[in-house]
């Protein structure tokens, strides 16, 4: 077991939160996109995480986190009455993406805080390794 592996664990956390932040940014950017290459309005993206364990001597040791998948949210689209919109149906309703801006903002705060917590852990690991290195100095 190396003390440097704590860095890798924190790095996996930083990467996971950044991936989540990318998905949130994409959701906010596309909150009004009614056309996508798959056809229909944009669907909200969600990121799923999975805990990773490394097997050392048959005893599973914590090994960080992994981005399991980026999936689309199957919930219903928002219906907005706007007959002047080119994508409006016969009754004047437009299907808008199933993105809720407020929800995305809350997720964004949560991702930012989790990102910072991982950076804090990384700095703590660094200070421990520095303490060990300083022992060698007279």
């Amino acid at each position, binding site marked *: 077991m190396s*003390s440097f592996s704590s860095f890798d664990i924190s790095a996996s956390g930083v990467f996971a939160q950044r991936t989540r932040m990318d998905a949130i940014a994409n959701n906010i950017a596309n909150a009004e996109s009614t056309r996508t290459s798959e056809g229909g309005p944009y669907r909200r993206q969600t990121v799923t995480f999975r805990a990773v364990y490394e097997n050392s001597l048959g005893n599973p040791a914590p090994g960080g986190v992994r981005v399991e998948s980026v999936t689309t949210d199957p919930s219903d689209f928002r219906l907005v009455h706007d007959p002047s919109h080119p994508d409006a149906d016969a009754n004047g309703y437009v299907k808008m993406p199933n993105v809720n801006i407020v929800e995305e903002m809350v997720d964004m705060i949560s991702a930012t805080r989790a990102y910072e917590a991982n950076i804090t852990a990384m700095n703590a690991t660094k200070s421990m390794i520095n303490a060990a290195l300083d022992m060698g100095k007279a």
Partner: protein
Amino acid sequence: MSRDLFNDVTSTTLRKTLDATVLRQKAIASNIANVETPGYKRAAVSFEGELKRVLDRSRGPQALDAVKSLQPIRQTDTQSPARPDGNNVNIDAEIADLNKTVLLNRAATTLLQIRGNMMKSAVEAKR
């Protein structure tokens, strides 16, 4: 005497404490990385309680052997209350633990260094 310079209870205890802090740091890093993973149960490392028990029980050479065979124990904490998604990481508690672990590590390295300096003075026979 067959005892070498760093083969005493104090140095061994400090080294074991360093081992424990490094292992605990890894557990905390993993808990923080998994703060948003559904179903994740926090990892914990126990050491101080067992160390205290060993040092309360034995003295001298027995204490040295007992401390030497002591190992920090990694556990999965399933007791702490979990959130609705099954995850039981409390980020504030983890950050507090993180700071405690770093300070304990600093204390142990500083004491080991002081001990090393004492040995150095003895070896150099400073007057």
